[in-house]
């Protein structure tokens, strides 16, 4: 069985995010396989939510397009099941608490396990609130990835020591989106995290260029790119797959 840890096994992980259902679930399946072919070590598949408060305009717009195309949580699970045999890297689902809560935590994590999803990221379910979902996730062997932010400070110890899968280090204040510069002292935060855990640390929010990927791969175990890929898919629509593959290959080779 695939595990999140596979993505970090002896290498720096490149983690790709895309929004399921943008422009269609069929195309998302293609883009996932293209991301894998380009060298992605792990893929986060976004499930659209009407009000994504942690998201910047790029991913918010992608969620709106996916919803307009009729994409819902159960459809994303079905799509993942359809490519299960062709994907050899670990897959994660990323969405907001409400679609999962309404679907039902128990049913959701059972389905995740069935379709081969290794982990889940729910940005509006912070450490203190995680227990209500985690009890079901553990039952089905699905890992819940926790986030650490530049503001976490004294929270780092408790979050890190209970982390599973990997730790999603938020590079900057604010929402997701491409940034030209990241000013947080990431090395210091990573050093702090590493005192409390061996769980790998991957950094996301604002990374889009091979130069940034190279730079942040030096201080962390992996690099997460979302908005840049979502933008690429927006730009190329139905024909994004080769562009996704090429872009990820360029990012991966820089790391």
């Amino acid at each position, binding site marked *: 069985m695939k595990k999140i840890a596979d993505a970090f096994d002896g290498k720096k992980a490149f983690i790709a995010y895309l929004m399921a259902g943008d422009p269609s679930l069929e195309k998302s399946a293609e883009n996932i396989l293209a991301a894998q072919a380009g060298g992605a070590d792990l893929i986060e598949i976004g499930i659209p*939510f*009407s*009000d994504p*408060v*942690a998201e*910047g*305009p790029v991913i*918010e717009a992608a969620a709106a397009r996916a*919803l307009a195309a009729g994409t*819902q*949580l*159960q459809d994303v699970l079905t799509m993942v099941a359809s490519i299960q045999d062709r994907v050899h890297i670990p897959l994660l689902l990323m969405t*907001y*608490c*409400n*679609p*999962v*809560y*309404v*679907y039902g935590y128990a049913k959701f994590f059972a389905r995740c396990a069935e379709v081969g999803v290794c982990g889940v990221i729910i*940005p*509006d*379910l*912070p*450490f*203190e*609130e995680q*227990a*209500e979902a985690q009890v079901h996730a553990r039952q089905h062997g699905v890992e819940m990835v*926790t*986030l*650490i*932010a*530049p*503001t*976490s*400070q004294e*929270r780092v110890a408790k*979050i890190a020591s209970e982390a599973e899968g990997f730790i999603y280090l*938020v590079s900057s*204040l*604010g*929402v997701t989106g491409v940034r030209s510069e990241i000013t947080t002292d990431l090395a210091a935060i990573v050093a702090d995290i590493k005192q409390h855990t061996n769980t790998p640390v991957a950094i996301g929010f604002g990374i889009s260029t091979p130069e940034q990927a190279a730079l942040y791969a030096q201080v962390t175990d992996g690099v997460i790119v979302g908005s840049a890929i979502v933008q690429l898919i927006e730009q190329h629509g139905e024909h994004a797959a080769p562009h996704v593959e090429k872009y990820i290959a360029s990012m991966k080779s820089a790391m």
Partner: protein
Amino acid sequence: MTPGRFGDFGGQYVPETLMAVLHELIAAYEQAKQDPQFQADYAALLRDYAGRPSLLYYAENLTKHLGGAKIYLKREDLNHTGSHKINNVLGQALLAKRMGKTRLIAETGAGQHGVATATAATLLGMECEIFMGREDTQRQALNVYRMRLLGAQVHEVTSGTQTLKDAVNETMREWTRRMDDTHYLIGSVMGPHPFPTMVRDFQAIISREIKQQILAETGRLPDAVVACIGGGSNAIGAFYDFIGDPSVRLIGCEAAGHGIASGMHAATMSVGTKGVFHGMKSLFCQDEHGQIAPVHSISAGLDYPGVGPEHAQLLVSGRTECVAVTDEEAVNAFETLSRIEGIIPAIESSHAVAHVLKLAKALPPEQVIVCNLSGRGDKDVAAIARYKGEDIDEKNS
């Protein structure tokens, strides 16, 4: 599970980036509550600046007109800035200042909370930025100008449904970007802990005053307290001191828009289901997939797909009742109170008045109803005229 729970409702469902600033706020609020100086400063502002206590007025004309229970109006509309919003705003602004924050950000629907926040920012020498859905900036243009006049920057929110929910999304995003010097002054008993508790504490003065005033006036507790509910801040304020008095019916009036059957409403407590949104577990108008539903109300202040977690718990436990009032009924109440009492209520408050018009008739004359008149209706006059097919935009002479 985090503190700030009302039964299973409440909690702190926010991105990690905001957790530290919420903990900072909880600590600061706990400390301020115990500090006599803070309490004295807050009480002085409420008295000298907001004009509290607000009157409890016996609406004799309306009572006679309906021929049933005695109707008292709690005149929150007479507060400075024209609504109950100032009670909470002064408390939070003082707290933010004490925490060393120099900038206030807030969402607003009808604009009453935005105006109150802009006012407090000016008074306390703080910067102020208000987020308001584009649809609301159009239907409440007067309040947009008031906020600008008071020195606040008003951001039009063009995402989603361009109303209150989207204004909250955008203000949360802004807080995530910048929290060092910035306090998000949430205007209702919603959002992550400590907001539902803190805002309720700052609004509870309404029911404390009602209780004193009605006992002094009639020597008894009221039989019912009626208030409108969007997020629920004026309602929790009007209910809170009566929760332990089981003889007092507590009735929340939410927006039924074009009618619940039409699907164009904001009747969260009547038809909403449990969910997690805007930092809290509560009841929401949403579809079967957990997507937050677009809602509708003539009243921008009630046009919200959720309700505060304490209201959800009070309703589920059976302590409170809720009724849904249509746009048409609210407009009718707006006109009725204007013509019979000479008081123009906010269109939000008109939802409560509309239910009182029905309830008073159904109850005997020895019973007493208190209606919380949460705001004044000057801001709504142009919109109501439009609703009635009359264009009263002032033209250049």
